[in-house]
């Protein structure tokens, strides 16, 4: 967050005590580049509503928070990718060692996405349970020697 403390606006008091405080114009020119960097236009800064500067500062704070979150998320993905390939990065891995599967979908960030994902998961579990139940009923009705669990699993997976 870019801050403009009053002491900073007052000028270089510490550097030279005898120097007069900055005039308003000098103070404006001193902070003007900072506001340009925040996206404020020349007209907005000099001729526009002076309150706009406060809004731009708040917006900049939000933007920085968002960027921080994005970078953190990127770090998480990189970390996870490294963890996934870690098994094959060992010096002498066991024969047949494979990397873990990288997540097929991005992380659910928003509340809506999280809800959707949890609903999807619940649905999947319910379907699997139902498939197992169906297989059991079939087995009771038709007591043929079936390949037990393997078939049930295949049936559930196909569902």
């Amino acid at each position, binding site marked *: 967050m870019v801050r403009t403390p*009053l002491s900073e606006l007052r000028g270089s008091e510490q550097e030279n005590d005898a120097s007069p405080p900055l005039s*308003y114009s000098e103070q*404006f020119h001193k902070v003007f580049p900072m506001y340009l960097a925040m996206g404020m236009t020349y007209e907005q800064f*000099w001729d526009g509503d*002076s309150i*706009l*500067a*406060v809004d731009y*500062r708040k917006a900049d704070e939000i933007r920085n928070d968002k960027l921080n979150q994005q970078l953190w998320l990127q770090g998480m993905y990189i970390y996870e990718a490294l963890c996934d390939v870690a098994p094959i990065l060992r010096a002498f891995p066991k024969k047949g060692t494979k990397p873990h599967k990288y997540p097929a979908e991005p992380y659910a960030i928003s509340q809506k996405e999280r809800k959707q994902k949890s609903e999807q998961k619940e649905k999947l579990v319910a379907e699997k349970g139902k498939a197992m139940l169906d297989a059991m009923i079939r087995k009771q009705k038709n007591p043929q020697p079936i390949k037990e669990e393997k078939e049930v699993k295949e049936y559930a997976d196909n569902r």
Partner: protein
Amino acid sequence: MSKQLRFSYKDKDYCLEFTRRTVEQMERNGFVASDIKDKPMLTLPALFAGAFLANHRFVKADLINEIYDHMTEKTELIGKLAEMYNEPIMTLVEEPDEKAEGNVSWTASW
């Protein structure tokens, strides 16, 4: 929205305010902010005239003086104009968090 002073004079509406550009322009013309405190009654007409620059740039000095003469409650007026004049700079200053430890809250007796 920035602080504005509105009034009507001879059927014309006026909206006085300061922008950073008009403040800079006033300083270029010799206006010194600290004079508001030291010699308020001398500074007030210049401050009043400067407030016209943002929205009524082409109003003549004679008319501004005439309006100024007709303005009532001049003591209060100077306070308001000073507040308006300070706004462009004060909006550049970060307000400390009121609840944060160590920050001072204050009250006035008037």
